[in-house]
């Protein structure tokens, strides 16, 4: 038995692969779900389908997907030029911290001034956190995987330090910041919890898609990521592109942090360090480093996240079951999508014709 590359893939194959992955997930998780005391099929329906059956559910999915859109885009843009930014987590937090700094410094600004300022602050915060690894890479050729990765816990510690120190809530003494002023709320959409951060994210998805697909810059980015030497040979300034993408990536992640505190939390809390940046790596790579791929995967993960919470509440399944199901689904989907490029062949067939001579 061996895999043989398919010549042409039928269109239905991708859909069939995902379908197969869902069935496989169901089969693999049925045991644990039963162990935890629920019926697998109805649990599965809760996890994946239910959130999409009500308007409120869909809104929650959009809300859960919002931060992932930002971090997914951030990672995708960096990975695309061959800059392996694993630091979206830290940049996301830095963005949130910078936004908080603005909100705490100027609490009384009206929304018209407060929001742009806070968002720009967030983007700059992300840039600031992305700056050192990008600089080390550009000036000294130092690998960004290590530096961006190690700066993530440092960002968490900075967050804790600020919350335990200067930003400690003056009312409660707890390590979360004061509530932001009136002007610092991103407007809600459709009378739900979804906020304008989603719109910003969607605009960025479209802009990114257009830049990547339809501009010279997009072609250069792709070339630089795919074969840096050849791109350099063709006059693409790979180092410069990577440097700029690293900073843009930081800005996007930072904007995500800003969107999350302005749209959801309305204050800065330690719970913001919830792994949005790390998930962004999954979102970006699973989304094929394309803008709409990022959007699709973010929505899928949002769906499963909302579904997992719903299932926990309705079926009293342990919260970890959601993690098991999400990760199994993730792995079976990528495996199925990857295998679909191949045919499984039993062994080399023998020549049908008789031997001449």
């Amino acid at each position, binding site marked *: 038995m061996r895999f043989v590359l398919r010549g042409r893939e039928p269109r239905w194959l991708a859909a069939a692969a995902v379908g197969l992955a869902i069935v496989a997930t169901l089969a693999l998780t049925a045991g644990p779900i039963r162990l935890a005391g629920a019926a697998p099929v109805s649990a599965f329906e809760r996890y994946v389908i239910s959130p999409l059956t009500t308007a409120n559910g869909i809104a929650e999915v959009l809300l859960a997907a919002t931060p992932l859109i930002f971090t997914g885009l951030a990672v995708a843009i960096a990975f695309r030029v061959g800059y392996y930014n694993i630091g979206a987590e830290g940049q996301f937090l830095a963005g949130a911290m910078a936004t908080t700094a603005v909100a705490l410094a100027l609490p009384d600004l009206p929304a018209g001034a407060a929001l742009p300022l806070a968002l720009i602050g967030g983007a700059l915060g992300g840039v600031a956190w992305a700056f050192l690894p990008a600089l080390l890479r550009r000036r000294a050729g130092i690998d960004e995987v290590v530096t961006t990765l190690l700066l*993530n816990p440092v960002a968490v510690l900075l967050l804790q330090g600020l919350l335990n120190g200067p930003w400690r809530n003056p009312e409660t003494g707890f390590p979360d910041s004061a509530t932001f002023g009136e002007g610092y709320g991103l407007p809600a959409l459709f009378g739900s919890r979804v906020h304008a951060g989603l719109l910003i994210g969607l605009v960025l998805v479209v802009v990114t898609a257009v830049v990547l697909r339809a501009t010279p810059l997009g072609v250069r980015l792709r070339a630089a990521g795919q074969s840096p030497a050849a791109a350099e040979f063709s006059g693409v300034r790979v180092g410069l592109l990577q440097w700029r993408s690293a900073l843009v990536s930081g800005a996007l992640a930072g904007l995500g942090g800003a969107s999350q505190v302005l749209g959801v939390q309305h204050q800065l809390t330690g719970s913001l360090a919830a792994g949005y940046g790390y998930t962004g790596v*999954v979102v970006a790579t699973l989304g094929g480093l394309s803008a709409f791929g990022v959007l699709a995967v973010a929505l899928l993960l949002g769906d499963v996240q909302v579904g997992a919470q719903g299932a926990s509440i309705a079926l009293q399944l*342990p919260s970890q079951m959601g993690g098991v199901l999400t990760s199994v689904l993730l792995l079976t989907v990528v495996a199925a999508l990857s295998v679909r490029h191949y045919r499984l062949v039993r062994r080399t067939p023998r020549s049908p014709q008789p031997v001449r001579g």
Partner: protein
Amino acid sequence: MDFPVIAVLAATLTIATPLVFGALGALLGERTGVLNLGIEGTLYAGAFVGFYVAARTGSLAVATLAAVVAGALAGALMALLTVTLGVNQHVAGIGTTLLLVAACDFSNRQLFGGGQQTVTEKFDRWFAGSGIPAQYPMTFVAFLVLAPAVWWVLRSTGAGLRLTAVGENPEAADTAGISVARTRWTALVVGGALMALGGSFLTLSLLGTFTLDIVSGRGWICIALVIFGRWKVVPVVLGALLFGLFDALQLQLAITPAFGSVPNELLIALPYLVVIAALAVRGRGVRYPGSYLTAYRRA
């Protein structure tokens, strides 16, 4: 109070132990071109399975063996995904970590849910009370057996040569009659077993119990250390020691009166910042294995 230099150095070795297991496990895979981001989950699985089996059987030997098997299975999952099925290594690795952590947490809930925390037997320190050598057996294994063994295998054996060849140029290895898939599978399975041993150090040596999030990002540090050490055993181990030293140091400084006014967050950040600084000092020249992140398949 004099500054307890000996204690800090002893703690350095202890802290570095799981990092050495994890980083050398990761190094094996990466030398063949496969980045195993499943490491965090594999450490976790090693910690949990070791703990669970110790709780069930009361035997540390069986528990250690079980952790090794769990790690090997985790490595096999990674190999199935990335080597056999050709899945993107970032996604496969992070997915594996998510799965293993969730599966362990789920099992922990099902098996031990609520109630008193279970405590098991754990390894005793050797040379207790003797300063720096007062360490758990696994620390000796890490530094005196594992690190030299991996160093020797990579340097002086055909297996090491194959590993490197597959990682640098799979087509060349293939042409020389070396099975790329088998080499990568082996490296990932053995590497997974090593990672899980590192994870089991936390439960079976250090604590005798399991708590959620017990690994707390040590896996990611291992990944950073492998790159820091440029896929070579000695610098990787030195990197682990450097991290351990500054972690031990910050824990000591935190209760040293002279440092009373330094925010503890800054102290805790110290080991991370030191590794970044050391990397900056080491300078450029990171050269990834030639086939890093790429699957290999013949036409």
